[in-house]
């Protein structure tokens, strides 16, 4: 789950990381009032759940409250990488002397958290990583020991941070580590962490991502989810524990297992079709889940045919067949359906669907070809 900048910075502040004064606004007038409170010189920042906002023109400095209102008006009308801007953060403008990159994230290859820092922080950090990799410092953290102070000092020294800031930097690193740990984050990033003209360290930007698998122990964070930023069908799918991603094609896909779901999409494409979605009903799905999945697929008006590819293991094909029948009864779909059942209780499943007017298939290739044909 991604958090907005303003949400991430609220969490940072709780862990003692200095952030600029500021608040969120949903209208230009609100933005103006906040700017007035903050004394006029502010930065107006689009709040969307995607990176590269600054480069897309979604972050602008205002010299007065009136200008802040104008800029907020502009930014609130923008779309950034397909996401409409619904809120802006109005932050006190900082007098920046230097921008640092600082993050803690999971390094899946090393199986450890890693602290990443660079003296050349800011919006071009990915270019720095590509062209001057020696400017990127990485220090792994032992997940059983946690972050040690000496590691933060090493990082501070490696990015040539002036000594006067080491103590404060270590404090911020310890705060970021605690925030990462206690929220089950997969990313806690400050870019930029700035040294201001008056020699303070301040986190001007914040990005956090939380592990969905850990949300069961973070009811408070779960409430921060911004469902406005999701496809409604994806929100609906999550309620049923389904993982669904909407795509642009016209062949709806319902599959058990993420790998097989991706493969089914790939093979539809290979035979000249175009998948309408990724949908993994997961392992051991019962009939209620299956019928919910089918309704979600059919809520997409582009869908011209549906492909069911179920390889039973934990999932039992007869359960899936029952779910399909329930959904057919309720939704009365008009599009052709191709179904392939293999594995646990496939026989029983096929029998249940005998009278359901579905196109059946034996192999995966056969199923994909029939679905592509049916969608024409």
């Amino acid at each position, binding site marked *: 789950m991604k958090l907005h900048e303003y949400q991430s910075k609220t969490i940072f502040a709780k862990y003692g990381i200095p952030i600029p004064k500021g608040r969120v606004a949903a209208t230009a007038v609100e933005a103006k009032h906040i700017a007035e409170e903050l004394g006029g010189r502010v930065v107006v920042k689009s709040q969307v759940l995607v990176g590269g906002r600054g480069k897309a023109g979604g972050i602008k400095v205002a010299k007065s409250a009136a200008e802040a209102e104008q800029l907020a008006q502009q930014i609130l009308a923008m779309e950034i990488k397909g996401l409409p801007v619904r809120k802006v953060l109005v932050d006190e403008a900082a007098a920046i002397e230097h921008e640092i990159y600082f993050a803690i994230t*999971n390094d899946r*290859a090393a199986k450890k958290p890693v602290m990443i820092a660079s003296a050349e922080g800011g919006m071009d950090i990915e270019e720095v990583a590509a062209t001057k990799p020696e400017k990127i410092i990485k220090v792994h953290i032992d997940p059983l020991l946690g972050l040690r102070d000496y590691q933060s000092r090493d990082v501070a020294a490696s990015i040539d941070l002036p000594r006067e800031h080491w103590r404060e930097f270590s404090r911020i690193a310890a705060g970021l580590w605690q925030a990462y740990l206690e929220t089950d984050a997969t990313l806690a990033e400050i870019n930029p962490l700035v040294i201001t003209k008056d020699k303070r360290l301040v986190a001007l930007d914040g990005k956090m991502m939380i592990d969905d698998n850990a949300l069961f122990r973070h009811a408070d964070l779960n409430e921060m989810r911004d469902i406005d930023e999701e496809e409604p069908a994806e929100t609906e799918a999550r309620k049923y524990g389904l993982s669904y991603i909407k795509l642009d094609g016209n062949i709806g896909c319902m599959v058990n297992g993420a790998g097989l779901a991706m*493969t089914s999409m790939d093979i539809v494409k290979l035979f000249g079709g175009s998948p309408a979605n990724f949908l993994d009903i997961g392992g*051991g799905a019962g009939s209620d889940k299956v019928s919910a999945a089918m309704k979600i697929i059919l809520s997409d008006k582009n869908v011209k045919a549906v492909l069911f590819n179920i390889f039973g*293991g934990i999932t039992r094909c007869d359960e899936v067949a029952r779910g399909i029948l329930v959904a057919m009864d309720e939704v009365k779909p008009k599009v052709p359906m191709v179904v392939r059942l293999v*594995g646990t209780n496939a026989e029983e499943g096929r029998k249940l669907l005998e009278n359901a007017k579905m196109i059946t298939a034996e192999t995966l*290739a056969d199923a994909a070809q029939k679905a592509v044909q049916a969608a024409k």
Partner: protein
Amino acid sequence: MSILINKNTRLLVQGITGNEGLFHSTQMLAYGTNLVAGVTPGKGGEWVLDGKVPVFDSVKLAKEATDANCAVIFVPARFAPDAMFEAADAGIPLIVCITEGVAVQDMMRVRNYLDQKNVRLVGPNCPGMLTPGESKVGIIPGNIAIPGNVGVVSRSGTLTYEVLYALKLVGMGASTCVGIGGDPVNGTNFIDVLEMFEHDPHTEKVVLIGEIGGSDEDKAAEFIASKMTKPVVSFIAGQTAPPGKRMGHAGAIIEGGAGTAEGKVKALEAAGVKVAKHPEEIPSLLK
């Protein structure tokens, strides 16, 4: 011959009295797996599966009584990390975690702890392992594979079944099939399994099933090019998956360009691996 599991595997099931644990224990026992014990805290002393398998309160007690040498875990995600620590502390050398949805920070702690104890973990979020005709540890349906000389290693679950089934349909069998699981932080990885297959006299060819994300397939390609003499055939899932909307820069900094299906296919082909366009093409590439 086989790798990791065979008829000498003495299996213990953690979470044996749960819904899934019981269902799959029944299947494993029916397959002929030497299932010696179950563990469910609070149910020690009971017997399950028609009185064939004793239940213990802890892995330690179960191991003392039955000398189990492999544990398979079916407990819910929030309890799975504890189950893995428990099995490792009880001295079980091979742990297979089927559970899906384990939190990644938990997995980092588990993995680092198990490494220190030299315990091998397969999974989590995996279908387990199957040595056809000898032992089934996990949830791979037993009837979709026959014994043979093809080693199969996969990050996926049901996609693995497709491949085993496609092999069976043309009369090809597997030496052992290992599902390593699709989670970002897991136990055994591709290279570990490839190395075992390379040294297993009964494995003559290998199938590697990968997917988008991470860099394990790229490392496997390096390993195959430098260390393997046996032919490898592969399939990579996710060629049409759309790139996610990225937040933050850390992912790009750590992974660089790695992670795409295209990049993995290229790396594998450069290592001499034949990459199938779809899973049902694999048997013909093995011939």
